[in-house]
């Protein structure tokens, strides 16, 4: 068997695979054209499908302040995870670790003060 005919198998396979996947679609299309008429309507074309009519628009915009607020909340939410082992091991901690932790807390607190003074926490 020469190399060309070895690749022929792949071509045959590709053609068969395409026919296998396209044939049902074509059959369905032919069937719909021949027998089954399309019947669209306002209810059938509606987006929401739970029996109720949809009200308003799904494209709601959130205020950008919400994201800043959310990020600040997330930072302090994660901080509590670090605070818990810190509190458990507090009495055995060397001075260096204690100072490192206090610096970490103060950095976050400073960030909060900065955001507060920027007026991020106030929604107008």
């Amino acid at each position: 068997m020469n190399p060309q005919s070895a690749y022929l198998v792949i071509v045959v396979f590709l053609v068969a695979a395409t026919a296998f996947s396209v044939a049902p679609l074509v059959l369905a299309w032919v069937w719909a054209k021949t027998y089954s008429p399309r019947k669209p309507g306002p209810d059938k074309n509606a987006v929401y499908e739970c029996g109720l009519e949809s009200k308003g628009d799904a494209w709601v915009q959130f205020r950008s302040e919400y994201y800043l607020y959310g990020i600040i909340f997330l930072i302090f939410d994660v901080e509590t995870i670090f605070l818990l082992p810190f509190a458990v091991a507090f009495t055995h901690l060397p001075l260096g670790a204690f100072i490192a932790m206090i610096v970490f807390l103060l950095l976050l607190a400073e960030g909060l003060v900065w955001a507060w003074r920027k007026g991020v926490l106030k929604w107008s």
Partner: protein
Amino acid sequence: MNEGLRSELSKQGIFTTTLGDLYNWGRKNSVWPLQFGLACCAIEMIATTMARYDLARFGAEVFRPSPRQADLMIVAGTVTKKMAPQVVRLYNQMPEPKYVIAMGACAISGGPFKQGYNVLKGIDRFIPVDVHIPGCPPRPEALIHAFMTLQKKIDEQKLTGRDRPRHLDPDAPSEFPVPKFGEHDLIPSNNPAVWHAPKLVREG
């Protein structure tokens, strides 16, 4: 092809069919119901799908959560006037061909709550019902019987001709008017295209 030739061929081990028969055979054995229960009849409907009664034997165990994928609406329970527009809208959102089984006394007539001010006296006032099942609630066997009746109905539907079913007729409607909430009743209170008030015949 006449019946004699067909039976002669089948004796020789040659199976013959028509396109319509093949179509109906496939349809009747894969009727997917809409997952949708309104009241206590739904419990019996659930029991029908479970192992003891096993609706899967009829190819109908796949309860679809979306009307877009469903073939059959089993109206299982009391239809209140508050719920009726939603039921009709769900029916409208189902693709053709679609069928309806009205399950239980409430769905076919209002049942024990018929005198209630807020109970619809039968879902067949708004949408065409294929099989009615009486009972309060009907036993799972009754639902299975309704199912087999529906399968027989699907099997007998013609593919072409004047008496072909609605979904093959381009002029027949696919959507039915959704009633609105009125001051005292639904407006309209029924769909005259699918339902007529029964005429009382008094003798003597």
